[in-house]
């Protein structure tokens, strides 16, 4: 081996070492600033991580587009849902008077709120578009309580990194990071287009996350859990981050 190629080898070795430690540092920084999604492993992990990191750097405080009243879709499109569970039907028969939203996990005061309790919080109305991952979309006015207000009232702890939200329907839950959980447009929506939120659109209570695709806006919410780690991701085979 000639000395030149040995020198080249050494130089390449240093470059590789620098590259690897650079990657390690980048990973540490990315984790510190919440740029690594929970589904960062596996063959699709690199793509998901790049998308999530790039969008979180770009969109941490940006607001979803809001529209004028004349742009509201009439009629809106109600996507299909599984047949309501027996528990849901029982609560519906009573006009949802017994509907409760439990708040637990990393909060100072776990709570259980009725729909009236939720309606006592300041109201936010916003006209946003809901876009399904399939491709279709519609615009509606959503009226409800910003999730951030409910989380603050329950004393959300600083170590919380995600909020898991569950539907009354079996095996239906999702989770979002704190950037979306504390975002002013993330709503616990109980009304739509100046009426109660229809059951077909997620009534009596739906979490609207307007900066992500429709499947993150889970219908029939009964439980919020603040947590620092996720054991499973929700919509099984779909990407966890759906801001695309």
């Amino acid at each position, binding site marked *: 081996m000639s000395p030149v190629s040995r020198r080249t080898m050494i130089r390449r070795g240093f470059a590789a070492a620098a590259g690897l430690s650079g990657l390690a540092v980048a990973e540490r920084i990315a984790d510190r600033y919440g740029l690594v999604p929970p589904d960062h492993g596996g063959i699709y992990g690199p*793509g*998901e991580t790049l*998308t999530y990191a790039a969008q979180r750097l770009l969109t941490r405080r940006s607001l979803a587009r809001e529209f004028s009243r004349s742009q509201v879709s009439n009629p809106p*499109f109600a996507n299909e849902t599984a047949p309501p569970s027996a528990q849901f039907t029982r609560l519906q028969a009573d006009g949802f008077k017994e509907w409760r939203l439990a708040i637990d996990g990393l909060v100072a005061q776990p709570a259980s709120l009725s729909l009236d309790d939720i309606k006592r919080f300041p109201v936010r109305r916003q006209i946003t*578009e809901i*876009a399904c991952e*399939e491709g279709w979309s519609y615009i509606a006015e959503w009226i409800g309580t910003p999730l951030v207000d409910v989380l603050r009232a329950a004393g959300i702890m600083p170590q919380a990194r995600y909020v898991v939200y569950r539907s009354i329907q079996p095996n239906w839950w999702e989770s979002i990071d704190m950037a979306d959980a504390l975002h002013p447009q993330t709503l616990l929506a109980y009304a739509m287009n100046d009426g109660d939120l229809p059951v077909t659109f997620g009534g009596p209570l739906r979490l609207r996350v307007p*900066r992500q695709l429709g499947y993150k806006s889970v219908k029939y919410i009964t439980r919020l859990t603040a947590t620092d780690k996720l054991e499973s991701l929700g919509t099984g085979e779909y990407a966890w981050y759906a801001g695309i």
Partner: protein
Amino acid sequence: MPETALSVDRMTTVATGTDAPRHAALVRVTHWLTTLSFLALLVSGLEIVVSHPRFYWGETGNVLTPALFSFPIPSSRATVPTGYGYVLPDQNGWSRYLHFEAAWILVLTGALYVIWGAWSGHFRTNLLPEASDRSVQSFSRAVAQHFRFARPVAADASSYNLVQRVTYVLVIFVLFPFVIWTGLAMSPAFVSALPLTVTMLGGRQSARTLHFLASVSLVAFLLIHVVMVWFAGFGTRVMAMITGAPARTREAE
């Protein structure tokens, strides 16, 4: 002979000797990375279309609104009125993961290629039409020649002809950026930070339709590209894009 003079001139601008590679190593690597990621984007993109094979214009669109155009194929969603008595299985999970992973490979590969192409003079030397060729007359002459399927001249073995140059410039600097832009314009998070990227296109559904049409144009390019390579000598040209070996024309043999 002017033809020979031209060949020699082109040879010297592209490569300094006959042993120099037909395509630079970076061009070869980025070409095949782009091919792979484009095919992955195509398969996963078509799969996603199956879940809603209807296209709209404007901001919103769904099965309750009129479609701009739709495809008479079965769908993977029961909510889409297709006329078929069955619903295809939902494959959007892996399709969406693959679509965005391949998109990142394509974007990073493209960025590397564009930075290298500008820095190395690849665009100036090999892609932009030569100064003497920048006229409507020479372009129409070159197109006419193309459609006569004239045998490639010796110069074509070492350099791109005018029609190739114009097509490649359009694909690299117009179609690919447009398909990336229209893709990003469908992201609710991305447009929350940069709303103009979607309003300029006429709304979310317009962006989706344009994304589809841009993809169709890219597929048309791919098909014509493969046919032209076939006419020019498939094995030799593909090997040149893999190993970089200088291609030999029939004249040279």
